[in-house]
C-alpha cells in the first residue's frame, strides 16, 4: 500500500516539476550580527514571512536554508534585547545574506545582552534542529536521538526507550530539560526520560564527559532539550503537529500558541500541549500483549524581558501510562527459559488500547523561575527549579486490589547562579554556583526498590575560553559535594538503619580548537567527570523484574570518576563534508553487576548479582561523510564503533552497543511556490552482532547477543502553500521490509522481536497572526 503512495507522490513531484520548471534550489545562508561589534547573535529567530517558516541561528549566528525558490521575501530577525529587524530581499540565486541588528537601548552601547542561553562548552556535540524534530515528531525522545551518530537506544520494546551515548546510559547521562537537570528516577532500563520532545525547538547531545558546566553524573554525555526563545515582536503565532502511526495505531497531537503583548513590550507567553495514545504494537506476525501507551503533557511559559534584565516562569507537566509486555514478567528462571526458548510470543494478543498489569504510571512536574540581568560585569542568571517525579508500578498480583506495588516520589529543588562575564582581553567565560536538595520516598507497603533518602549537594565552577584569531583554548574546573542521608529497612524484621554518605570530587575540562583553513578545523578535549553511586546501586536487595534475578547493592561503593579524551576534525569541501571523532574514556570504579552464587527462594533458585566496581576503558569512533551529488541530491554515510574493555579483569564489558553503520540518500526539490521542499529519502541501517562479550557470558546471560540486522526506512514529503498558509506533510515508513530482528540493548530481546513496519503520516502547520492585520 505504502509503496503505491510513495510512487504516486514521487510521480506527482516529477510531474509538477516538469510542468512548472522554476528555479527553487537556491541555498541561502543568513548570518546575524550585532551592529556595532559584529558579534554573532545567538539565538536569533530568522522568520520568513512568505514561507511562514522560522529558523534559529547557531552559535556562529548563522542559519542555512536549503531549496529556496526565486522571488521576493520579507525576513524578520528577532532576538532578545535587540530591535526587531525586517528586511526585504529578492532571491535570484544561492547567496549569503548578512543582517545587522542593533540593541534596544542605544545609550548603553558598551553593554550588550549576550545570549539567552548559556553557550554550550566546546566539546563534541551534535544537534537535532527543528526540521529534524518535525520529521520525527511523535516518537519518544530516546528514539529521536538515534539520528545522532554515536547515540543508540536502550529500552523495553517499543514503549520505553532511552538514549545511550558512546555505550553509556541511565545514571551516566545527564538530561537538561529547559536548562534544568531532569531528576526522574532513571534507575534502570525500564525508566524512560519524562520529557515531551514537542516542547523543544532544538535537542543537542554533548558526547563524552561534560560535568564541568552541568554537574555530576555527566560521564557519558549530556542531552539538552531546549525550547525556542519567547516571541519578541507583538502578535500571535503557533504551530499544530499531528502524527498517525500505523503499527500501534497511535495518534499524536501537539499544539503550541504564543503571544507577545503590544501594550507591555517584552511581555510574552507560550502555551503548549501534547496528547498521545497508542495500543498494542505489532512485531512481524504477532501483536504484543499489553504494550499500549497514553501520554498527556503540557507546559506554560511567561516571560518578561527588557534590554538588560528579564524574568521567566516556566511550568511543565508530563503524565504517562504505559503497559509492559505481559510475557516479560516471569516468576522464576524456568519461566524465563520457557519464554526465551519459545519461537512465538508466549502471551497471545489482539489489538487493544487497554493497558493492564504490569503497567507504569509516571508523572513529572517542573516549575522554574529565572531572573537575568546584564551588568557591566556580565550577564547574571539566577535559576530556581522545583520538580516532582512520581512513579507508580503496577505489578502482576494474585489479587488485584487496584493499588500499585511501588509508589516512588522524588522531590528535587535546584538553584543555579551563573555569570557570563564580559570579555576580559581575549578571555570570555562563565562562573557559577549550584545547589541541590532532594528527597526520595516510598509509599507504605511498597515492595522495596530504593530506600528513602534525603540528599543535599553544592558545586562551584569556572570556565574560561581564550579566543585568538584562528584557535581557542578552553579550560574549566568544578568542585561538587553531595551528602546523602539514607533510611534502609534491613534484616528479617526490616529494622530501619540510617546511613550517611559524603561524596565530593573535581570535574574539569581542557580543550583546544583550531581553524586550519576556512573549511577545516580540529579540536582536542580532555575532560573529567564523576558521579556518586546511586541509592539503587548501594541498597537494592531484591528481584529485578523481567530479568528474573536478584540484585544486591553494595554499601561501600566509591564514586565513579572518568577521564575522557576526544579528538575531532571537520572538513567541508564543495561537494563533500567529513567529520571524524575519536574518543577514549577511562572510567575508574566503573559500577556494574557481577554474577555471584545462586540463592534459593520460594520460587526456586535465582541468579544473584552483586554491584561491584572495576576500571573500564571505552574507546571508539564516530565518522560522518556527506556527499552532495548536485543541488538536489545528498548522501550521508555514518559509522559508529565502540570497544569497551574491563581493565581489571582484562575482558570485554557486558551490554555495550554493537557497531552501527548507516547510509542515507535524500532528494530535495522545490517545484513551485505552492509546492516547496519536496523530498524523498531512503535510509539503511546496519547493526552488527555484538561479539565483544565477557568470557563468562554464558553463565550470566542467556541467550548470546542477537544477530546482526539490517533495516530500511523511507520517507517522502513536501510543503504545500495553501493561500499563503504552509502545510508540511510527510509520510515515512520505518522498517520497510518488516524485518524480524532483536536488539542487544533491548530488555525484551529475550522474549520478542522488535516492531515491524510502521507507516507514519505527519502534518505540521505553523500559523501566524500578523500584527499588520490590526488597525
Amino acid at each position: 500500500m505504502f509503496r503505491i503512495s510513495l510512487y504516486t507522490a514521487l510521480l506527482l513531484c516529477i510531474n509538477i516539476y516538469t510542468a512548472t520548471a522554476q528555479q527553487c534550489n537556491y541555498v541561502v545562508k543568513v548570518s546575524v550580527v550585532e551592529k556595532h561589534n559584529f558579534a554573532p547573535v545567538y539565538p536569533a529567530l530568522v522568520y520568513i514571512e512568505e514561507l511562514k517558516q522560522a529558523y534559529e541561528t547557531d552559535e556562529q549566528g548563522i542559519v542555512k536554508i536549503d531549496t529556496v525558490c526565486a522571488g521576493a521575501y520579507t525576513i524578520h530577525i528577532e532576538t532578545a534585547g535587540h530591535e526587531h529587524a525586517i528586511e526585504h530581499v529578492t532571491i535570484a540565486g544561492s547567496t549569503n545574506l548578512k543582517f545587522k541588528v542593533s540593541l534596544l537601548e542605544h545609550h548603553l552601547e558598551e553593554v550588550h545582552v549576550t545570549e539567552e542561553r548559556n553557550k554550550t562548552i566546546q566539546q563534541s556535540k551534535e544537534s537535532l534542529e527543528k526540521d529534524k524534530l518535525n520529521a520525527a515528531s511523535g516518537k519518544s525522545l530516546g528514539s529521536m536521538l538515534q539520528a545522532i551518530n554515536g547515540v543508540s537506544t536502550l529500552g523495553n520494546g517499543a514503549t520505553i526507550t532511552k538514549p545511550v551515548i558512546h555505550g553509556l546510559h541511565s545514571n551516566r547521562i545527564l538530561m537538561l530539560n529547559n536548562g534544568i537537570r531532569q531528576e526522574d528516577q532513571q534507575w534502570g532500563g525500564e525508566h524512560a526520560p519524562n520529557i515531551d520532545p514537542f516542547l523543544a525547538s532544538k535537542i543537542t547531545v554533548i558526547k563524552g564527559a561534560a560535568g564541568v558546566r552541568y554537574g555530576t553524573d555527566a560521564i557519558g554525555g549530556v542531552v539538552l532539550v531546549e525550547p525556542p526563545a519567547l516571541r519578541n515582536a507583538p502578535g500571535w503565532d503557533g504551530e499544530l503537529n499531528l502524527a498517525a502511526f500505523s503499527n500501534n495505531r497511535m495518534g499524536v497531537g501537539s499544539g503550541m500558541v504564543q503571544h507577545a503583548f503590544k501594550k507591555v513590550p517584552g511581555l510574552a507567553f507560550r502555551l503548549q500541549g501534547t496528547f498521545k495514545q497508542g495500543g498494542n504494537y505489532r512485531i512481524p506476525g504477532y501483536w504484543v500483549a499489553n504494550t499500549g501507551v497514553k501520554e498527556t503533557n503540557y507546559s506554560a511559559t511567561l516571560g518578561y524581558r527588557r534590554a538588560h534584565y528579564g524574568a521567566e516562569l516556566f511550568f511543565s507537566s508530563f503524565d504517562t501510562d504505559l503497559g509492559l509486555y505481559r510475557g516479560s514478567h516471569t516468576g522464576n528462571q524456568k519461566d524465563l527459559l520457557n519464554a526465551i526458548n519459545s519461537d512465538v510470543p508466549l502471551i497471545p494478543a489482539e489489538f487493544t488500547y487497554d493497558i493492564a498489569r504490569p503497567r507504569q504510571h509516571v508523572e513529572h512536574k517542573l516549575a522554574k523561575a529565572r531572573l537575568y540581568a546584564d551588568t557591566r560585569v556580565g550577564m547574571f542568571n539566577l535559576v530556581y527549579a522545583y520538580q516532582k517525579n512520581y512513579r507508580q508500578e503496577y505489578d502482576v498480583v494474585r489479587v488485584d486490589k487496584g493499588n500499585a506495588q511501588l509508589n516512588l516520589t522524588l522531590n528535587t529543588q535546584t538553584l543555579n547562579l551563573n555569570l557570563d562575564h564580559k570579555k576580559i582581553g581575549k578571555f570570555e567565560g562563565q562562573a557559577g554556583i549550584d545547589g541541590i536538595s532532594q528527597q526520595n520516598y516510598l509509599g507504605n507497603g511498597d515492595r522495596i526498590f530504593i530506600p528513602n533518602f534525603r540528599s543535599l549537594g553544592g558545586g562551584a565552577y569556572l570556565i574560561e575560553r581564550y579566543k585568538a584569531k584562528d584557535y581557542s583554548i578552553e579550560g574549566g574546573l568544578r568542585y561538587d559535594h553531595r551528602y546523602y542521608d539514607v533510611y534502609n529497612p534491613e534484616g528479617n524484621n526490616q529494622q530501619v538503619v540510617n546511613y550517611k554518605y559524603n561524596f565530593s570530587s573535581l570535574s574539569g575540562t581542557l580543550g583546544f580548537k583550531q581553524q586550519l583553513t576556512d573549511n577545516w578545523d580540529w579540536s582536542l578535549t580532555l575532560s573529567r567527570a564523576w558521579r556518586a553511586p546511586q541509592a539503587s546501586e548501594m541498597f537494592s536487595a531484591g528481584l529485578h523484574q523481567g530479568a528474573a534475578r536478584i540484585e544486591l547493592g553494595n554499601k561501600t561503593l566509591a564514586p565513579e570518576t572518568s577521564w575522557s579524551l576526544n579528538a575531532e576534525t571537520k572538513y567541508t569541501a564543495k561537494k563533500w563534508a567529513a567529520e571524524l571523532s575519536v574518543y577514549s574514556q577511562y572510567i575508574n570504579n566503573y559500577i556494574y553487576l557481577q554474577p555471584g552464587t545462586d540463592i534459593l527462594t520460594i520460587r526456586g533458585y535465582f541468579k544473584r548479582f552483586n554491584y561491584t566496581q572495576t576500571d573500564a576503558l571505552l574507546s571508539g569512533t564516530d565518522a560522518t561523510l556527506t556527499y552532495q551529488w548536485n543541488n538536489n541530491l545528498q548522501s550521508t554515510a555514518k559509522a559508529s564503533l565502540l570497544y569497551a574493555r574491563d581493565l581489571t579483569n582484562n575482558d570485554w564489558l557486558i551490554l555495550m552497543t554493537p557497531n552501527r553503520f548507516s547510509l542515507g540518500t535524500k532528494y530535495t526539490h522545490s517545484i513551485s511556490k505552492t509546492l516547496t521542499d519536496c523530498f524523498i529519502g531512503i535510509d539503511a541501517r546496519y547493526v552488527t552482532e555484538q561479539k565483544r562479550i565477557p568470557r563468562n557470558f554464558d553463565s550470566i546471560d542467556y541467550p548470546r547477543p542477537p544477530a546482526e540486522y539490517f533495516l530500511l526506512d523511507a520517507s517522502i514529503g513536501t510543503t504545500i502553500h495553501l493561500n499563503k498558509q504552509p502545510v508540511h506533510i510527510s509520510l515515512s515508513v520505518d522498517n520497510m521490509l518488516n524485518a524480524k530482528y532483536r536488539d542487544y540493548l533491548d530488555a525484551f530481546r529475550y522474549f520478542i522481536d522488535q516492531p515491524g513496519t510502521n507507516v507514519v503520516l505527519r502534518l505540521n502547520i505553523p500559523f501566524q497572526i500578523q500584527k499588520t492585520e490590526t488597525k
Partner: protein
Amino acid sequence: MKKVIYSIFAIAALAISFASCEKDPVTEPDVTEEELITTVRLIVTDSNNVEHPFVYKIENGFGSATQGTVTIDTVKLMLGKMFTYRIEVLNESVSPAEDITAEVLSEKDAHLFFLASSPSSGAGSITMSNGSKDNQNLPFNQTGTMSSGLAGSGTLTITLLHEPTDKNGNSTAATGGETDAEAVFPVLIQ
C-alpha cells in the same frame, strides 16, 4: 533599576536557602513484601484418615537478599498405597501466619497447582489423579489423590502458577504462567 534587580536576586537566594534548610522528616515506610509466600505445605491423608503434613519453607520467601532458614521435609510414603492430598500456601513471616490458600482459592480460575513427580513412574514415583477443578471445570489441583509407586526415592515438584495460558498443559512449559511458588520435595517411598 539595577538596585531593584540586585535586591530581587538577594531575596530569591535567601528565600531558597531557607526553604532548603527546612527539613521535612523522612518517613520510614512500613515496607512489607506484598503477597509474600514463605511456605508450601503438602498434607497427605492415608486410608486410616491420618494426616501427614510435609513442609517446604524458605524463611525469607522471595525477593530478599538472603534466604533465611530453609526447612524442606522429605515426603515419606508407604509403597503402593492410595492417599488424598491438599496443598496449603502460607506466609509465615508475619505472626500469626497468613494463610494464603483461601486467597488462591478465591482466584482459582487464574491459578494452577502443577504437581510433577520425578521419576514419573516406577520406583520412587507418585501418581496424581482426581485433581480439583476451577470454576471453568479446568484443572486447579489444590486437592486430589495420590498413589505411591515402588520403593525408591525421587522428587515431587509442586508449582503454584499464576495466569497459566493452558491449564491442560502437561509441563510447566506448556501451561505457561508466572511461578508464584515452587517447592521441590524429596520423596522416599518405602
